[in-house]
């Protein structure tokens, strides 16, 4: 009998192995260090004294609702806005003291595509390369390489203005990578894009990160943060409510492990079987989803073997055992008091008129 253990979400970009690696590297360099950053616009404290750091090679998520201060934080870090106070170090460079050197270390992908609509994809990339002092042959080589990587080679000579939204976003990411920055800032990279393109973009981002680029990503999609990021900061009203790695964030709330068993055929879920299971596994809570699916919960990790053997003895064949990961959504709601659905809806309403 074969048992597949796989995550319940199909679309999961499996970044987990890498995630664990990054977490274990305790001494890894911190390439972004932010201390007590404050920025007000008139009476609005857009960023209200935030501090955090991002390690080399990490995919760091900044998760928060509309107006939380995500874009403002990126603007402050990338030199598009001036902090009222606070300190920013990028790759060890103080951005206030040496902005030009800091700019070489970073690539920025804004929330809206800001390339030149009248230039072709290829020319846009070559132009961006020139801004970093790259020579012509090198510019063209790098532009072709990135077009290839993002699957845009076919569209290289078409005007950027004629690209679809997904293509625009990809080229904008390519432009951010043109000078091989150590740190890439991505402001809501999948917002306003169809599901398939968003998925592709997420895979590209995970791929880039696996190749070693440190990524700072903002999003208001909880699942996106959960799927992609190794560490996540929750930001609400300009303040960081919590920063931690995914495992730690999920730990307290879940305190429980979930397993979903799928049987080959409907099981007789009479009281007799139920009783037997309960006495065999007193630490587990069993819930029948339907005749074929049983959810097992526990406060300790659930070993699959004994369960499989038990059911085999009862004459029930298990087709599949899937771990169900407790979702970040619950953690977020608990910490911020903001409902995830609410956050998503507000965003969509806000975005409609612009589209």
């Amino acid at each position, binding site marked *: 009998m074969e048992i597949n253990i796989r995550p319940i979400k199909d679309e999961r970009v499996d970044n987990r192995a890498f995630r664990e690696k990054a977490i274990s590297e305790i001494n890894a360099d911190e390439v972004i260090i932010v201390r007590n950053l404050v920025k007000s616009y008139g009476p609005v404290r857009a960023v209200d004294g935030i501090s955090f750091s991002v390690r080399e090679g990490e995919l760091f998520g900044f998760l928060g609702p509309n107006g939380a201060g995500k874009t403002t934080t990126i603007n402050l870090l990338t*030199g*598009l806005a001036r902090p009222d106070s606070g300190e920013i170090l990028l790759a060890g460079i103080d951005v206030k003291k040496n902005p030009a050197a800091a*700019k*070489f270390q970073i690539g920025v992908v*804004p929330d809206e595509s*800001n390339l030149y609509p*009248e230039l072709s994809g290829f020319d846009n990339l070559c132009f961006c390369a*020139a*801004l970093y002092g790259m*020579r012509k042959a090198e510019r063209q080589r790098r532009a072709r390489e990135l077009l290839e990587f993002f699957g845009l080679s076919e569209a290289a000579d078409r005007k950027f203005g004629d690209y679809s939204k997904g293509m625009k976003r990809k080229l904008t990411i390519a432009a951010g990578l043109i000078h091989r920055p150590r740190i890439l800032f991505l402001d809501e990279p999948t917002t306003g894009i169809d599901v398939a393109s968003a998925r592709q973009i997420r895979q590209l981002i995970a791929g880039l990160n696996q190749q070693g680029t440190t990524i700072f990503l903002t999003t208001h999609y909880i699942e996106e943060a959960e799927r992609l990021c190794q560490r996540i900061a929750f930001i609400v009203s300009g303040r960081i409510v919590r920063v931690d790695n995914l495992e730690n964030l999920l730990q307290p709330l879940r305190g429980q492990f979930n397993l979903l068993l799928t049987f080959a055929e409907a099981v007789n879920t009479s009281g007799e079987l139920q009783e037997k299971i309960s006495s065999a596994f007193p630490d587990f809570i069993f819930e029948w989803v339907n005749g074929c699916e049983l959810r097992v919960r526990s406060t300790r990790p659930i070993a699959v073997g004994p369960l499989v053997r038990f059911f085999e003895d009862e004459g029930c064949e298990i087709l599949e055992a899937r771990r169900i990961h407790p979702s970040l959504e619950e953690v977020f709601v608990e910490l911020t008091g903001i409902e995830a659905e609410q956050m998503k809806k507000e965003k969509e309403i806000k975005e409609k008129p612009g589209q």
Partner: protein
Amino acid sequence: MKRSLAFISFWNILVKDMRTYYLKPPNISWGIIFPLAWTGMFFIRSGSGLSGIMSLLPGVVALSILFGTTSLLAVTITFEKKSRSFERLLLAPISLEQLLLAKTSGAIIFGVVNAFVPVLMASIIADLRGVKWGYFLAAVVLIAMASTFLGLFIAVAVSEVFEAQTFSNFFRFPMVFLCGLFFPVSKLPIFLRPLSYVLPLTYGADILHGAVNNGSNALPYWLDFLVLAGFSLGLFALSLRNVKRRWIR
């Protein structure tokens, strides 16, 4: 290494603006047809024969530069700011001074080219051998710089393209009358004269008059050049300060 970065980015910003804006039909027509129209209009309507051409030429040259340069900045700066592509430039590892120079040098060159449209026209019907070309060219370049930086100042101060256009007309049209282009400042009512002397074109037109019409300048050349250069520097510095204060906030 540092030098080549500065040069490569400067040159490519210039070339990109040339390709995407200056050499586009609407701007060619604005830049070339417009001076032609000025020239034709003034030369034909003046009715003062061939000698009239020489007295009109400085004014027409100055206007061609003024209108050719100031109108471009609304596109290369205000429009790019509005469409956010200017952010790309702000993210690049070049200084703001360099960036603004790269964004304006195209307009300066364009202004200088514009200046020679009326000169070419005039050369067909008039004898230009008496013109002091050294002074003439220097004045053309300085006028192009001063009016480009005036355009820059306006482009940076507003946020919509139409505002840039309206605001620049607010400066441009008074200059047609107040800067001694077609009649000397001394013929203006006395209460208007101080106004003339706070407008950069007055000094540029004065040099052009001197260069074309054999020393008919009202002020010494050195003073004209000095004031014109002062205006250019001042407007550039103000624009730089505005970008720092308003765009990186």
